[in-house]
């Protein structure tokens, strides 16, 4: 409780009267001092009573348009002050907006004497990704003579998600799959008996799901979505190795994979499936969140996914002729010229006397060493992943988010995840579409994309495995258009 300047002036008046009484030896003036003092004390006691009554009937609340926004988006925030009965004091509440948020004014709501409700809304822009917590609300009560300030704690926070890549394609061979909007690949959707909704047919949907009545009526193919009532523990396995974090086009494969993984996570939350997360980095298993259906775990997984790519700046991906991981699939990865020069029986363990020499061979040798190191690391990583999977218990769907830079490691991971008859969804980013100057040689890029597509199809053909490509939509369209042009040329 603090006095206002008006009260200080009144107190000063009483003191001056007392001083005058002493100076002029007129004790009558002390009556003025005594009665003004009595009035002040009565006023203070009255204010104290009103404060207690007002605060007990007051509710202060923050509200936001959305608890989760994208970086740079606008979302209004409002501060509401409500009272159960008309307030006898003037009430002003000031909300503390998180730092870094741009707003069009202070978040202050004032309640006049006799009012019961007030609200103040501001337009806020959220430029910084992360979790932003609103500060405590400072509530001030005053009767003009005294004021009381109370801090009311806040529990509201807004999660600002980083901007994702411009357009994410998730599908097969350039055709979109239904997972991009949080749906599941159609071959696993619709086991429940309850009808959910009708939607337009998309490639990959089962023929058995076609709603023939709706199709006949609307002249387009429609399918019936059945409500899933599954309880399928899902594990996201996200690859955070250097190759996934290498940027050549401004965005990394990891950013695209993150979007797809977030989509799976949203989907799992919608269906109430338990979800867990395991991240694999260059050293082995990083984050491990065991699958659970609780909202807390879902939030944790989502938060961890959102954090990906927001720490270290990604390394720069070199030109398409650079292949740091030594792709093992025949005709896959190494540039055509380099492949043609590798001796068929070349082995790094050959007798040094008979070993080919020269700058190029030295380069190959260094690649080979890297490859050997990577292979060892991959073995240890798979071993670790295997160990984690063994302790995780029942995981019925494993979603592997990775790129194609190391097919051997990829196959090992899929094999590991496939154990115990788990279903595996592989979200695979073609590295060729993330290279800075990849579109300079469209023909070459297309060839490498075809190789990637073969790898994806090989994976997709395995029982219980579904492989989808995750790529920049525009670049993929460009590369596929090149392929179509080439096909037309061949036909002529």
């Amino acid at each position, binding site marked *: *409780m603090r006095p206002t300047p008006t009260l200080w002036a009144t107190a000063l008046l009483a003191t001056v009267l007392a001083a005058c009484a002493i100076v002029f030896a007129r004790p009558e003036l002390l009556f003025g001092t*005594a009665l003004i003092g009595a009035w002040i004390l009565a006023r203070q006691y009255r204010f104290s*009573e009103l404060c207690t009554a007002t605060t007990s009937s007051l509710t202060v609340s923050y509200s936001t348009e959305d608890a989760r926004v994208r970086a740079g988006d606008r979302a209004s925030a409002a501060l509401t002050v409500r009272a159960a009965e008309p307030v006898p004091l003037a009430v*002003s509440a000031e909300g503390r907006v998180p730092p870094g948020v741009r707003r069009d004014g202070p978040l202050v709501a004032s309640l006049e004497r006799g009012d019961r409700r007030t609200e103040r809304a501001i337009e806020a822009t959220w430029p910084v990704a992360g979790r932003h917590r609103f500060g405590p609300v400072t509530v001030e009560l005053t009767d003009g003579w005294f004021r009381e300030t109370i801090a009311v704690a806040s529990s509201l926070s807004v999660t600002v998600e980083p901007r994702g890549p411009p357009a994410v394609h998730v599908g097969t061979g350039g055709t979109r799959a239904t997972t991009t909007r949080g749906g599941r690949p159609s071959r696993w959707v619709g086991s429940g008996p309850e009808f959910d909704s009708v939607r337009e047919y998309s490639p990959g949907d089962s023929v058995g799901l076609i709603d023939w009545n709706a199709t006949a009526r609307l002249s387009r193919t429609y399918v019936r979505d059945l409500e899933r009532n599954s309880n399928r523990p899902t594990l996201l396995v996200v690859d955070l190795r250097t190759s996934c974090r290498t940027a050549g086009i401004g965005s990394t494969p990891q950013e695209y994979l993150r979007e797809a993984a977030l989509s799976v996570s949203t989907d799992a939350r919608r269906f109430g499936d338990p979800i867990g997360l395991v991240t694999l980095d260059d050293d082995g298993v990083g984050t491990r969140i065991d699958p659970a259906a609780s909202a807390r775990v879902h939030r944790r997984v989502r938060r961890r996914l959102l954090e990906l790519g927001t720490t270290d700046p990604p390394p720069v991906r070199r030109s398409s002729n650079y292949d740091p991981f030594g792709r093992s699939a025949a005709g896959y990865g190494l540039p055509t010229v380099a492949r043609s020069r590798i001796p068929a029986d070349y082995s790094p363990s050959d007798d040094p006397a008979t070993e080919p020499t020269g700058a190029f061979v030295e380069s190959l040798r260094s690649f080979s060493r890297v490859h050997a190191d990577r292979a060892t690391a991959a073995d240890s990583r798979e071993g670790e992943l295997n160990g984690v999977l063994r302790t995780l218990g029942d995981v019925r769907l494993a979603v592997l988010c990775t790129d194609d830079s190391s097919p051997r490691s990829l196959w090992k991971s899929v094999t590991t995840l496939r154990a115990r008859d788990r279903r595996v969804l592989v979200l695979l980013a073609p590295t060729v579409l993330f290279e800075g100057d990849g579109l300079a040689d469209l023909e070459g890029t297309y060839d490498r994309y075809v190789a990637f597509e073969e790898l994806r199809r090989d994976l997709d053909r395995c029982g219980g495995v579904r492989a989808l490509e995750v790529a920049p939509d525009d670049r993929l369209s460009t590369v596929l258009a090149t392929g179509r042009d080439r096909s037309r040329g061949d036909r002529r």
Partner: protein
Amino acid sequence: MIAVRESIRNRRPLRRRWLEATVVAALVAAFGLVGGAVGVGLGILVAGVWYVSDVPYAVAAATICLVVLVPEFEPAVVGVAVLLGILVVSTTVTWGGSARVIAMSVFASLAFGGLASVGATRGRVWLTAAAILGGIGLVGYVLHGVACLEVGDGIEQSSETEDASATR
């Protein structure tokens, strides 16, 4: 700090201040009895101060006018002081204060007014002034402490999100 839209002067309509107005009218009459025509004039001045400002300023003006009007301390001064005390108490009634607030104002007026009266008759003005100011300060501090304990825990807080679902 927060801008509080609150009129500093708690000016209320005169019809709600009828009790205070009655006491002020009695005060003007008392001034007339003590000082004749000059007293009535000073009484009207005090009434004007009460009307445009608030009770503490009216009390201060009345005390000063009384000193001007009466050269020596006499029983009539005590009579006017009692009226001023009634004015202070009537203010709490006008506020719509609880019985405890009214009791508080009666108690404080009697206690500090009585102390001033004792000081005026005994002649130790500085000691009386110090006792009155110290007493007011002490009681004010105690009230502040009690208020700190009572106020502040009551405000309820809630947070809402219009759309709690994910944007994605």
